[in-house]
């Protein structure tokens, strides 16, 4: 049946392939022109509220959507996005421990390169690594995190958004809807292992239409948490070289021409100096690698509702990223290794959607962006200094019937590269269709059945292509397909228990031409090859209970569970054929309960993961043990004066003092705590 559905696409693909270069130019310029022309028209209709500040958690949507709100974020997380998304089902966070350790997020076994990240509506990316390190994004300034798996049912988004297997949308904390004077939030946190984190936010208005927000934080963590050594002595050692120091500063400007015509500008500054602790090597102990990272960007986003049927969105962004990596003990150099990488991205985006009738909406969007990477170091081998030109265009049609909603979209992905030396990567031009369907069989809308399909590519990253001695410019993009079939039900009750919902989704993902690092001739020389094939399937389930806020009391319980089989099907003759991919637990999940009683807020949360294998062979030698952690949170909301409120809190993490590993030989912190205070002025 799916094939039948896809048949018309095949013809289109064949046609488009033939004329691809014209089509990109055409679609891109059309989208841009259309959007700009339309945007310049004067408003003809009364102002309509553009987007509700309060997001609607539409669990009955055609694709699975999971949300963490601000009140949940502050209760569960250790301060960064990677720690927070562990509470979503289907999400696997590879956590190398500590604040400075790398944290990558993959959704449903698709690999971290398939997870897109939107920050206030525009994508953030890292063309060098091909994946965003979510450990370095703080949750302190976020009001919510949403995770979409599959084709997103919103047609007014940058074209890039439709290219990913899963999208994490991060929304920064906005000022209260209608404030009149200056609002400030001051906060200070401290905790175990030399952690201190002051932050401040100030929001103010100039004139009637201009809202400013300045938000900044400083973080220092010694990170030298204790762990039991792996040798048989039972001694306790402290983690070395895990210190981190970051400074983040954000400025947001929001200009509301009218309620339905808003311009948002965001400037972001981030600077970090940290150790890279590395895995524990038994019988030796040496870790002195350092990383200095600077990431700045400025982005503008203009969204306008032209009339009750048409909306346009224009976006632009410039991103600068600098990494200085030092390894004084690098054995292949007489005086250590020092790499400097400078990465830039220039990005423009245009999108529009239009309601054709009460039944149909169409949307188009186009992105054009340029990525470049330069390296400076003592290596004698010349660096390719690649520049990548990307065009992405997306078109989709949506039908929103009373009982059936459907969407069909197609994404055109084009990429071309230039290099200073050596071979450039192959150009990429691919068409990727996506379909989704939801059906509410009953009158009361409380139950929805859904089905979606999406095909995707993951182009090789700069590291895959050009990394010294390892990179391979002959790489093709990875190709993936995902299917999702699910059921979602919600019930709204009249009593104290207000809301109960359950979602169960089954999925199947297939990845072809997966890019893997393979040693060439010995373990010190690797190369990247398109040799992997993955067949993954699983079930994600979520349960949520929420009560009303009655008599100053409120309670909420959220349970997430994931079952995941992720099989290596690369080579029929290999020992590893149909074995579970390394670091993929079959069972994992989270639970979180929270309670508000008058001024007191209490939360308990837990995470668990079944055992995993660190390498392909499913033998006891490779087992990384199952683990579970429990965290507690307690806060009190107090009012100091009429205008000043404060909220002291304490959170206890890993209260069972478990020593566990997410990645073998990267011990995770045992019991630790955080405490702090937020003051609202």
């Amino acid at each position, binding site marked *: 049946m799916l094939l039948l559905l896809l048949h018309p696409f095949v013809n289109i693909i064949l046609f488009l392939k033939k004329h691809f270069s014209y089509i990109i130019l055409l679609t891109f310029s059309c989208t841009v022109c259309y959007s700009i022309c339309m945007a310049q028209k004067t408003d003809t209709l009364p102002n309509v509220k553009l987007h509700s500040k309060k997001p609607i958690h539409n669990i009955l949507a055609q694709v699975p959507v999971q949300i963490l709100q601000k009140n949940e974020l502050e209760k569960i997380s250790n301060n960064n996005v990677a720690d927070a998304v562990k509470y979503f089902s289907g999400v696997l966070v590879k956590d190398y421990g500590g604040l400075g350790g790398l944290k990558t997020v993959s959704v449903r076994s698709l690999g971290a390169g398939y997870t897109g990240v939107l920050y206030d509506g525009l994508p953030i990316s890292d063309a060098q690594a091909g994946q965003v390190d979510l450990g370095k994004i703080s949750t302190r300034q976020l009001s919510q995190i949403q995770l979409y798996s599959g084709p997103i049912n919103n047609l007014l988004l940058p074209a890039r958004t439709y290219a990913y297997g899963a999208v994490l949308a991060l929304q920064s904390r906005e000022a209260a809807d209608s404030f009149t004077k200056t609002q400030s939030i001051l906060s200070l946190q401290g905790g175990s292992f030399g952690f201190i984190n002051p932050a401040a936010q100030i929001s103010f208005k100039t004139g009637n239409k201009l809202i400013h927000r300045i938000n900044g934080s400083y973080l220092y963590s010694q990170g030298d948490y204790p762990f039991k050594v792996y040798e048989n002595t039972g001694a306790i050692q402290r983690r070395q070289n895990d210190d981190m120091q970051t400074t983040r500063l954000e400025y947001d400007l929001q200009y509301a021409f009218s309620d339905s015509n808003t311009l948002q500008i965001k400037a972001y500054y981030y600077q970090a100096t940290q150790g890279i602790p590395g895995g524990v090597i038994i*019988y030796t102990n040496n870790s002195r690698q350092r990383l200095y990272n600077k990431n700045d960007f400025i982005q503008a986003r203009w969204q306008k509702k032209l009339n009750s049927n048409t909306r346009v969105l224009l976006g632009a962004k410039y991103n600068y990223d600098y990494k200085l990596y030092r390894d004084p003990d690098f054995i*292949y*150099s007489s005086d250590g290794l020092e790499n400097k990488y400078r990465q830039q991205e220039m990005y423009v985006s245009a999108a529009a959607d239009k309601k054709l009738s009460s039944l149909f909406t169409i949307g188009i969007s186009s992105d054009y962006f340029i990525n470049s990477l330069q390296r400076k170091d*003592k290596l004698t*081998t010349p660096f390719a200094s690649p520049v990548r030109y990307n065009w992405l265009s997306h078109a989709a049609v949506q039908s929103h019937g009373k009982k059936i909603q459907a969407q069909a979209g197609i994404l055109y992905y084009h990429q071309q590269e230039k290099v200073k030396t050596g071979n450039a990567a192959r150009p990429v031009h691919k068409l990727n269709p996506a379909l989704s369907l939801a059906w509410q069989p009953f009158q009361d809308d409380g139950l929805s059945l859904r089905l979606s399909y999406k095909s995707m590519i993951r182009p090789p990253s700069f590291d895959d292509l050009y990394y010294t001695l390892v990179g391979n410019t002959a790489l093709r993009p990875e190709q993936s397909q995902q299917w999702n079939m699910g059921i979602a039900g919600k019930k709204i009750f009249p009593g104290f228990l207000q809301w109960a919902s359950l979602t169960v989704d089954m999925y199947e993902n297939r990845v072809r031409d997966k890019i893997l690092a393979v040693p060439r001739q010995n373990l010190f020389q690797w190369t990247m090859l398109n040799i992997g094939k993955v067949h993954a399937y699983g079930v994600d389930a979520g349960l949520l209970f929420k009560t009303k806020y009655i008599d100053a009391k409120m309670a909420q319980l959220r349970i997430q569970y994931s079952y995941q089989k992720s099989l290596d099907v690369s080579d029929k003759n290999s020992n590893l054929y149909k074995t579970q991919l390394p670091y993929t637990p079959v069972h994992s999940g989270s639970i979180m309960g929270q309670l508000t009683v008058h001024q007191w807020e209490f939360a308990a949360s837990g995470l668990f993961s079944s055992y995993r294998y*660190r390498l392909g*062979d499913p033998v006891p030698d490779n087992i990384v043990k199952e683990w579970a952690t429990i965290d507690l949170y307690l806060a009190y909301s107090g009012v100091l004066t009429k205008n000043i409120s404060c909220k002291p809190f304490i959170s206890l993490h890993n209260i069972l003092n478990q020593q566990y590993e997410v990645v073998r030989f990267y011990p995770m912190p045992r019991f630790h705590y955080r405490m702090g205070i937020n003051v609202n002025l």
Partner: protein
Amino acid sequence: MKKNHLFAIGLCILILASCSKNEIPAPPQSGPAKGLYVLSEGSFGQNNTRLGLYDINNNQFTGNYFAQQNPAFPLGLGDTGNDLLLYGGKLYIVMNVSSYVMVINPVTGKFIDSISFRTGAGLPKYPRNAAAYGNYIFVTSSDGTVSAIDTLSLAITHSTPVGLNADGIVAANDKLYVTNSGPFTSGYDSTISVINPYNFTETERIVVGKNPVGIAADESGNIYISCQGDYATHGPSLVKLNTASLSITKIADTATSVIKYFNGSLYALGGFLGSPHPRKLSIVDFSAQSANFITDGTPLISPYNITIDPQNENVYIADAKDYVSAGEVFCFDKNGKKKFSFSTSPGVNPSKIVFIR
């Protein structure tokens, strides 16, 4: 990549038995092999080096023999075992990333001692390969030194500076020869160092070819050096050097990684972009006596090391397969026909083999 020096060592023992004053009594190294010690390097950073023992008569492999015999070391040997050397009744295991040398009793598999490899500043030296001469085990290290371990006290008594990333080492003609592969950040080294094992000094440094790694010696005073090239403009080469005149007598541009000398031929594995098959090369002109040593079609995926049993001329090839799952050791007869094979599970990347007789 690195050679097993068994044969050369065997030779040394024979030669030295007559000239050395205070050699250690060693169990007999003759007769048919009863067992094989197989060192599986493991994966970088995984602390999963495994020493396995294969019982030839019962066709049985104990994959984690070291940990089984040494409950005090439940996690085993540590990270990235690079070399295995049997000498004077002791088995030396060179642990590269864990940066030490483990010494065990080859009969019981039990711990005797471990020797830490640290610089004066306490940093790891990353030892690579070992060769025996007289009362010493000479070990190359990536920091550009050759350390001499006294086989009686099991202490490092001397450290001789050579080139950076010193890699292969072989004893021949009363000297030690060390390949200096050099840091890739500065385009690799091209030399070998000659060490006088009596006063522990470097006597010569000879240019042989870009990125020299593998090294082997014959019984007529020649050594063979496998140069990897720089993987870009400088191609690989195979070099023959006469140790009496210290002159190069033959250079060919054939790509090799591991080279082993036995009975008038070189057994070679293909290096970077080299032949996928184990080859047998003429020591006169490096032409291929057989372009594929395996004659019965036995499929090898990633030949990783090659070891010859001089007693019965069996050729053992360690296959690393996909480098992340268990490898396999194949035993071939001298004509390249498979005799038996066994999985090295849980050992990943099997490489060095030592015979127990």
